[in-house]
């Protein structure tokens, strides 16, 4: 595999019961780059990103054909430890979903379940992650407060910090700003740009401007098919496919 | 490694979850094992069709027809009270009562459903029976009528809560559509809501019947206890549950009497099982029909 490719989907078909929702998706995810996935609702973009850390395993009666690689390992091999995959491929969800625990406990949870028990190490990681997620200054005096008391934007950054705490290699963002106000959105976009220095990032968004602002590569999905994948600039300026052009210029979707 | 432990834990939970099935199965097996030996003493027809219940006489009579009829009539009588009152109050609560009235009455009804049957039985015995005896000028207060009356009152909260659940499943849009056509609330209720909730309400009735058939302490104390086929509303009866409760303490283990009581238990069990299955089948179809999965 090309050494600057971190993940790669190969001929992926996906079924809900008998209904095929993804058709022959083949897509590379480049290392330390931001790849955005865009497309109208129901095009399968969220389904696809949830395949990258096997989150769809939780949905009964679903089935995948094809292969998805993380480095050189097909993560859908039967003997793969799915827990290990999810440790390496973190995820931030559409709606902020902090645990109903204190801010500190939200951050230490991931470390503890992965076996960390050194207090200083945990404290260190909590602080670093909050700093990385640009939340530290706002919460440093109230770490024992319940995370649900934070504002929506702060909660989402907390979820990002929580995701960073276990030091994943790839981070998946599933429409992370869908439920946020414009200021929080801006804040999270800046954060994503900073994070790509250390992480490989995939982001699903229905907001084309957002894709244009934050991503290096863009994939356009339409009715379960990957229509076009290219450098973001090209997708938005010289798309090859007519449907991509119509979508990015706002003719539908 | 982690993989394996996870699977072990999952199987552990599976085994514990199976306990319910195991208990149900266990109950079935026990009732058959302890109940079937009665057929060494009597034939099926003599048992179910027999009009005489003198299990401790010599020679004994094991006819349980009086007991079955006792249960039957008490249940019919109780449902005549519980169904209109239960469903009426559910409709009132769900369709007419204001938000605040509902917020108070609903928990009250739930609370009343939790009153122990022994309390109803006690009340029936010391207050209601003497009262009815005087009021109606009947020879004994502890009779079919009193038992039906008290059981009916007792089942109202149960039927009411179940019927209310059924009404909850009727989508709001049904009502709105009817109002939009100019129907008033009563017309909407009778022509739209009740038909839509019909099978849900019948589930409530079936479960109510099943509950009343299995009710023990109240009938034990109030029904009068005579194991004869009643000829009028004001004669004492001895329903199946009361018979088991009253006689099991004295039956000699392993005797025909003992097996007969288990046989009655088996019949009770099968009746309620069938009722519950029917209720569940109707209920499931009902929820699907109104577009609620699971």
């Amino acid at each position, binding site marked *: 595999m090309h050494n600057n490719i971190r993940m790669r989907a190969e001929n992926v078909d996906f079924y809900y019961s008998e209904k095929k929702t993804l058709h022959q998706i083949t897509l590379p995810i480049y290392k330390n780059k931001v790849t955005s996935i865009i497309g109208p609702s129901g095009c399968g973009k969220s389904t696809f990103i949830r395949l990258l850390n096997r989150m769809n395993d939780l949905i009964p009666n679903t089935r995948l054909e094809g292969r998805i690689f993380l480095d050189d390992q097909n993560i859908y091999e039967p003997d793969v430890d799915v827990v290990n995959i999810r440790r390496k491929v973190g995820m931030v*969800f559409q709606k902020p979903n902090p645990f109903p625990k204190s801010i500190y406990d939200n951050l230490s*949870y991931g470390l503890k379940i992965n076996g960390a028990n050194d207090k200083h190490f945990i404290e260190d990681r909590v602080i670093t992650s909050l700093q990385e997620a640009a939340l530290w200054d706002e919460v440093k005096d109230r770490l024992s407060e319940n995370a649900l008391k934070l504002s929506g934007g702060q909660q989402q950054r907390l979820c990002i910090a929580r995701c960073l705490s276990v030091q994943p290699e790839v981070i998946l963002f599933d429409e992370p700003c869908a439920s946020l106000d414009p200021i929080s959105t801006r804040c999270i976009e800046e954060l994503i740009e900073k994070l790509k220095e250390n992480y490989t990032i995939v982001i699903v968004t229905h907001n084309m401007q957002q894709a244009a602002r934050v991503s290096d590569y863009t994939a356009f999905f339409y009715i379960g098919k990957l229509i076009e994948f290219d450098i973001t600039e090209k997708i938005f300026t010289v798309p090859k496919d007519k449907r991509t052009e119509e979508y990015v210029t706002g003719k539908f979707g | 490694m982690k993989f394996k432990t*996870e699977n072990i834990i999952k199987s552990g939970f599976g085994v*514990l979850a199976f306990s319910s099935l195991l208990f149900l199965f266990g109950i079935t097996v026990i009732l058959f094992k302890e109940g079937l030996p009665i057929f060494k003493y009597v034939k099926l027809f003599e048992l179910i069709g027999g009009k005489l219940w003198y299990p401790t006489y010599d020679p004994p009579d094991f006819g349980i027809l009086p007991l079955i009829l006792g249960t039957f009539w008490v249940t019919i009588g109780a449902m005549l009270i519980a169904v209109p*009152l239960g469903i009426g109050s559910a409709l009132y609560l769900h369709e007419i009562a204001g938000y605040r009235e509902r917020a108070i009455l609903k928990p009250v009804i739930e609370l009343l459903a939790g009153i122990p049957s*022994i309390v109803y039985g006690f009340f029936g015995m010391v207050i209601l029976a003497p009262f009815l005896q005087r009021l109606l000028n009947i020879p004994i207060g502890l009779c079919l009528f009193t038992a039906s009356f008290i059981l009916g009152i007792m089942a109202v909260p149960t039927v009411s809560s179940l019927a209310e659940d059924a009404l909850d499943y009727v989508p709001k849009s049904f009502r709105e559509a009817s109002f939009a056509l100019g129907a008033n609330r009563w017309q909407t209720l009778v022509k739209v809501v009740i038909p839509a909730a019909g099978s849900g309400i019948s589930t409530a009735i079936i479960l109510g019947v099943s509950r009343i058939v299995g009710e023990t302490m109240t009938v034990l104390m109030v029904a009068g206890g005579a194991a004869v086929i009643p000829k009028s509303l004001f004669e004492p009866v001895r329903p199946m549950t009361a018979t*088991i409760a009253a006689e099991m303490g004295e039956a000699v283990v392993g005797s025909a009497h003992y097996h007969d009581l288990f046989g009655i238990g088996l019949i*009770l*069990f099968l009746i309620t099982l069938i009722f519950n299955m029917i209720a*569940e089948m109707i209920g499931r179809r009902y929820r699907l029909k109104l577009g609620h999965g699971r």
Partner: protein
Amino acid sequence: MKRSTLSQGIGFTFLYLSMIIALISVGAILFFITKNGIKIISWEFLTGVPRRAMTQGGIAPALVGTFYLIIGAILFALPFGVAGAVFLTEYSPNSVVVNIIRMSINNLAGVPSVVFGLFGLSIFVRFFGFGVSILSGSLTLGIMILPGIISASQEALIAVPQSMREASLALGATQWQTIRKIVIPSALSGIFTGVILSVGRAAGETAPILFTAATFYTRGFPDSIFSEVMALPYHIYALMTEGTHPEEQTLIAYGSALVLLLLVLMISGLAIYLRQRQRRYKLA
């Protein structure tokens, strides 16, 4: 007046009346039991032992017996109930197996209480040889309240948002870690409410303990789980049917009934209150 308005008026009146009649009848029961029972209730009645062939004294042994039976039933039913609920909601692959378990839970919930008594008599009292005892009675009551505990726990587990599970799994938690550290703690208050509700039910049940645990009279308090016990609901029944001094014993029965009623109403009132508060909290 329009005909349709008239029919609405009549219809609504009928529904209103059915509500009123239902409330008045139950209200009458509560009234009479309170009115007569309150005369005898005193500190001595609650803490004393029965004296003079059950015509005087208190009901303490019956209260204690009921308490033991409930504790035993919960200890037995709780692990089975919660584990069953966890399996059905968290591990449930929506399969045939799960549907069978679900069906047996529903059917178990509908088994008449006296049949549980027969089962307990045959299995615990005789087959296992526990005799008529706290142990036999607790196990019988435990099986009886099992379906209630399972449904309440299931409801509480289902109410935990799926996003909590996903957040935990996405951090590399195993399913068991997720269940133990996120799902069960979030569902705990709901499970607790279900347990209280079951306690209320178990406290008032008489038929299951008739032949498995209860006795008319004991000298003092039970000393082991293999002792027979007096129990509050059975005490009422026994006073009314086996008593020899109807006048005094009816009064004691009134007192016992009032105590039982208050006990059960308080317990289930607490559970209903907690549940409403939890639901409101979830909506907010």
